[in-house]
């Protein structure tokens, strides 16, 4: 997985990087909040290890908040580095969206253990998002013809209509039907009718 380390001290950064790389993860580093946000939006890492205070730019809490607002289908596991075990600071961090925290001075083993959890949690989220996409696709597809179903039609029409309003453009709908198909079913039976269905357009 890809790990973003956002920390203003070069020594701590090096330490965190070594731990993450020992676990076989790819690392990107930011020395302040500004860089961290730029790297996050460009690379969308799976895990972010963020210092609590790292001027200029967003601090650790603001970064948590921004990441949570930004993500839709993905999940970023956020580990906050706090310089002391200040309870309010930790709770504020978790409230802002952090998943876990490590107290500084950074104990390599503590970060190592948390990155293991981070890997597990992001893997689960990835699997979950794949299932979600598949489920959404299935819910909008007719299993026999593989055509989009009524639910999808409703959604597509909504989008189409809004787009035409927004850009002030017209649209037209064509309705396709198979004439006399009921007669075929009545004569040869529904099973025979089903056999004649083919996905259309042909794939």
């Amino acid at each position, binding site marked *: 997985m890809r790990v973003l380390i956002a920390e*203003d*001290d*070069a*020594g*701590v950064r*090096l*330490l965190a990087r*070594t*731990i993450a790389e*020992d676990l076989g993860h790819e690392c990107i580093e930011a020395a302040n909040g500004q860089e961290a946000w730029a790297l996050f939006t460009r690379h969308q890492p799976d895990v972010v290890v963020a*210092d609590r*205070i790292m*001027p200029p730019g967003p601090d650790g809490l603001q970064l948590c908040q921004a990441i949570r607002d930004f993500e839709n289908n993905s999940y970023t596991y956020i580990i906050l580095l706090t*310089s002391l075990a200040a309870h309010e600071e930790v709770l504020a961090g978790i409230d802002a969206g952090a998943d876990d925290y490590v107290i*500084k*001075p*950074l*104990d*390599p083993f503590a970060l190592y253990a948390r990155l293991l959890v981070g890997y597990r949690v992001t893997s689960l989220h990835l699997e979950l998002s794949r299932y979600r996409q598949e489920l959404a696709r299935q819910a909008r597809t007719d299993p026999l013809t593989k055509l989009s179903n009524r639910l999808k039609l409703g959604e597509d029409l909504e989008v189409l209509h809004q787009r035409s309003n927004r850009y002030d453009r017209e649209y037209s709908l064509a309705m396709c039907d198979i004439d006399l198909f009921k007669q075929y079913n009545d004569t040869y039976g529904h099973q025979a009718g089903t056999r004649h269905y083919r996905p259309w357009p042909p794939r």
Partner: protein
Amino acid sequence: MADGAEALDAVSTTCYSAVLMDCHMPVMDGFEATEEIRRRQVNGTRIPIIAMTAGAMAEDRARCLAAGMDDYVSKTVKQAALGDALTRWVCPSVLAPAQGHGEPAEPNHDSSVIDVQRQSVLRSIGPDDGWGLLPATVSAFLEGSPASLAAMRQAVATGDLHSLRESAHQLKGAAANIGAPNVAAICHQLEQASSGPTPADGALIDQLETELDRATRLLLETVPVAR
């Protein structure tokens, strides 16, 4: 160690760079323990023993030296005096392991200047040469700390509390990471002071500079840093 007998055991099983010896302890006092250590070390290297005496009387000192101690600091122990005594007696060549000759020796010195435990944590990961990440992290610290100090001095001069707080926080984190507790503690004071009603003055910065110099010197002596 809580008494002279324990000290004696410790010295006979582990190689220390120096002993800080309280004169008055239960079971076996500092004088007896020193005499015994000296008796056993006839053929070995002479370990520096520094007395910590409550009385600053000349006769106390004479008694310490007579027992075989090398130096003394009076109680309550002042950091600077202890630092000086250690610098006098603990030879830097003992502290600094020779480069490229197998497993480096464990440096042993004043733990409030340099925290050896923290350093061994840094040595436990990274390159497999016995030094681990220590040289690289020390080098990052030495590179960044003068700028932080300068920024803090500047901030105090101009009364810019916000910058002072930021720089103090930054150096505190860096010092804690590298294992320089005194530097980290003064930075913490400066950070607190810059948020409180009584802003920090130059004296605390001077103190920080002294501690930073001390830590820097020890780091350069004990860690193979490419400069």
